């Protein structure tokens, strides 16, 4: 059996179980994501891509089944342990999820604050990552003054800053224009080329074309796995 960086076993997620508004977002999904791979979760809206991404990234807990990340079963982790596991991951959200009014350099280094890094060290780390992503000039600008493409690059910078083993990106190009989307796709490819595992949920066929592994979901079920 292949041992991956991430393994999902019979993963199910039901929202509001036992109520009239019950939603079965994910049903019995099992998959393996090898280390260093570029994985795309494809499928129409409402197919369960974001839910699967949240469960793989320890942002949510499954109703049934489990996720194994590296050597840990996430469902067995305490709240503190889950937070520690998340420090080994990076997240890029569809709506960027940057903290308003906070300069970009602080936004992207916010995850490092509890790790005791001094402001000077954080600034240095931020400058390095921002230079890599072409955002040096925007380091002191709050997110609301940036374009969508710049905000998404800042979000990628935040995901990168802690040198994560895996980066999860949820529809990262959906709020961007064509040019910005192409730039971001190139950045993601570069990140993966450097050895970081990428798990991206997307409708974007260009992004899907770069993937080493594509999982297709429909109505919360895994219907196809293509490498």
């Amino acid at each position, binding site marked *: 059996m292949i041992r991956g960086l991430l393994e999902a076993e019979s993963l199910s997620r039901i929202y509001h179980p036992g109520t009239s508004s019950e939603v079965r977002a994910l049903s019995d999904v099992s998959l393996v994501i090898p280390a260093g791979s570029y994985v795309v979760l494809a499928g129409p809206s409402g197919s369960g891509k974001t839910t699967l991404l*949240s469960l793989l990234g320890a942002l949510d807990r499954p109703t049934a089944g489990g996720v194994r990340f590296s050597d840990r079963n996430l469902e067995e982790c305490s709240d*503190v342990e889950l*937070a*520690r596991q*998340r420090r080994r991951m990076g997240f890029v959200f569809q709506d960027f999820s940057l903290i308003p009014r906070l300069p970009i350099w602080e936004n992207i280094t916010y995850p490092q604050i*509890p790790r005791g890094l001094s402001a000077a060290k954080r600034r240095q780390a931020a400058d390095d990552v921002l230079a890599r992503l072409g955002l040096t000039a925007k380091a002191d600008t709050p997110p609301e003054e940036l374009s969508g493409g710049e905000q998404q690059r800042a979000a990628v910078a935040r995901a990168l800053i802690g040198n994560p083993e895996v980066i999860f990106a949820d529809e990262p190009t959906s709020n961007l224009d064509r040019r910005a989307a192409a730039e971001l796709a190139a950045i993601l490819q570069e990140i993966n080329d450097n050895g970081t595992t990428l798990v991206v949920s997307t409708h974007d066929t260009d992004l899907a074309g770069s993937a080493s592994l594509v999982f297709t979901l429909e109505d919360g079920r895994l219907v196809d796995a293509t490498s």
Partner: protein
Amino acid sequence: MSSLLNIARTGSAAILLSPLRSAVTVLAVIAVLVPYLVGVGLVEGLRQEARIAIGVGIPAGEELLPDLYVAANQFGRRVPIPVALAEPIGNFDGVTRVVPRIVGRITLGKENVEAVLVGMPREELQRRGSTIQRLAQLIDGQLPRSQHGEGPQLVIGSGLARQLDLQVGAVIPPIFRSGGGEKTPTITGIFHSDISPWQSQMILTTFESAADIFDQQGLATDLLVFCRRGQPESIRSRILQLMPGSSTGDATSFRPSVTSRADLESLLPAGLGHREGVFNLLFVVAFAIGILVILITSGFGRPERRREIGILKATGWQTDEILVRSLVESLLLGLVSAAISILVAVVWLKWFNGFWIAGIFLAGVETQPAIAVPYVLAAQPAGLAVLIACLLVTTGSAYSTWRTAVTPPAEAMR
């Protein structure tokens, strides 16, 4: 340790990240704290004024204030005491002097403005070094000198002067009809507006004129007994032996009452305590409402805050770290709120002279007090205000922060 400091710093920065929420929280705390501080400041000020008035801390024999107040009671009510008793009491060894005093209630003008009339003997009013003589420095005009049968000379409180539109030298319609016929009172002085509230509605005149006004010759409200150091207790016993008591059983008999300054001091908390108690009760209600207000105001920018916490959790922050950040933010907001509240309370008391709120504690004081309201903003209530502010903000925000922090980040960010 450095990570804790870093987290604490983000707590202080968080105040500016949610400016609307911070501003509303601070305003809500100020709305609760300022009336409390102003109220407590007034109560303390009044207590201090009252303590000064009865001479707490002034040892017996200093001749500034009486050591014993001798009065008469019938059926539990105060009745006049014969002035003639002043002589035998004055002869007691250890008594330096006995001053009869008249304190009565009268009404003035067409509006029937109520006033307290105090009559003191002319020689006492002119006695060098007496408290009354010191009071003369707080009067625009002169102390009264009117004798029995003459038109009374009056010094009136600033509140009365303003209400009745009276100046020094003014004459007012006769306020009495005694056996000696009508006499027209003259205003010889007005108390400054910035002296104690007790004098605002007061009229000071000579003992003789007061007796004419009330048409009760030979009687006083009480006798003020000044004693030598260490003597008051023994003199009190001797006065009680001297006075007739109830044994005679005729219409003029009365039960004596001798009150020392220590007795007055012990009575002091009871009077002020009533209003203070009512105020404290109201404040407890306000405090409870304050917590609700903070809970509601913490809803300002709540989706944004919820999302922010979700982002923190998603990027590796632990629940306890988020709670520390929130705690620091709450404590700083509490400190800022308390500091502003103390400042506003001082401004309210000092520059706005306890506008509106003074009327709650001082009978007869209007919305805009005519007198300088007494206040003392001590360290203790100020410290308590800081504690209350921190408690209010922390209580208001801790639960919602904790609830969000233990929610899966995906849900919090939704």
